[in-house]
């Protein structure tokens, strides 16, 4: 018996990265802006998407891919807004992977402007998986506390924009939005920061404009 040591240097996420690159190329070719939403459970991802559906109605077409461990509940909420939604139930897996999105894309209407992918509620694992999106949002709701960016740095490091949600609760909570933003910006200086209340509508215009600008950049080939 002989033993030999070989150097392989193989990326464990290579398969996911390849699948993500194919999705990104397809979405860009179709002129669709892919947006991946990351956050802990209950921070308001679905409520934000419902509010965006109302903002975009009659101006832009959107579709949603919902990731959850179980149930069709989130997709039903989105469909109630008249928006096509495809639910992925992972059956226990803590994150979405690119190959799941590749499958789900077959059920997404071709003529849309925005494809929102709501990841499984989890501020840890989804950060490691590229889904082929062009914009990654991380949501942090005010009840969660302003100390989360430094505790979960990978999620904030991997994001393009931070959305501080449930801003209408700020008068009742010891949440300092300046501190949360500063902590996130120390990790990722290029993060765009938005403060919204999906229930009251505050801040939604700015966030919607951010998506529209990103869509225009993508369609002019500057993504």
């Amino acid at each position, binding site marked *: 018996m002989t*033993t030999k040591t070989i150097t392989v240097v193989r990326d464990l996420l290579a398969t996911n990265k390849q699948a993500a690159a194919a999705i990104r190329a397809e979405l860009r070719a179709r002129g669709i802006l892919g947006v991946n939403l990351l956050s802990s459970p209950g921070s308001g991802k679905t409520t934000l998407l419902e509010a965006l559906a109302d903002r975009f109605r009659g101006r832009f077409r959107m579709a949603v891919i919902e990731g959850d461990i179980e149930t069709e509940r989130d997709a039903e909420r989105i469909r109630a807004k008249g928006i096509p939604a495809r639910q992925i139930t992972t059956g226990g897996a803590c994150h979405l992977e690119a190959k799941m999105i590749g499958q789900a894309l077959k059920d997404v209407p071709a003529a849309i402007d925005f494809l929102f992918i709501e990841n499984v509620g989890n501020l840890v694992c989804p950060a490691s998986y590229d889904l082929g999106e062009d914009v990654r949002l991380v949501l942090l709701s005010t009840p969660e506390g302003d100390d989360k960016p430094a505790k979960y740095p990978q999620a904030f490091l991997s994001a393009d924009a931070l959305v501080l949600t449930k801003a209408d609760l700020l008068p009742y909570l010891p949440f300092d939005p300046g501190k949360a933003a500063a902590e996130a910006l120390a990790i990722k200086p290029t993060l765009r920061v938005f403060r919204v209340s999906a229930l009251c509508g505050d801040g939604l215009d700015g966030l919607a404009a951010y998506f529209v600008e990103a869509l225009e950049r993508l369609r002019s080939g500057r993504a």
Partner: protein
Amino acid sequence: MHELSLIASVFEVLEDEARKHGARRVSRVVLRVGLMSGVVPELLESAFESYKIGTLAAAATLEIEVVPVKLRCPDCGGEAVRADTDFSCAACGSRRVEIVEGRDLVVGTIDLET
């Protein structure tokens, strides 16, 4: 907790490399785990120990090298390793740094028995 699915990918690499090199067993695996890769080395170890039973790596040992975060600064050209999450250039303070190492998960070396 996605360490188990990552370990499943490690075993795909092991089986593939063993086949390519005509090896029967794997006796040692070195994983390089970036500090900002989002995985916990201890959980990778326990996932590896559970997964290896009955495989070509049943007797293999796992070594994990933690790769620190290395930054490169496009403003001053400096490179630095940082242990905390304040990703700014240690030399000039610029915040436009790129992370060049410390985010990946890689199978580094493997000992194969033929």
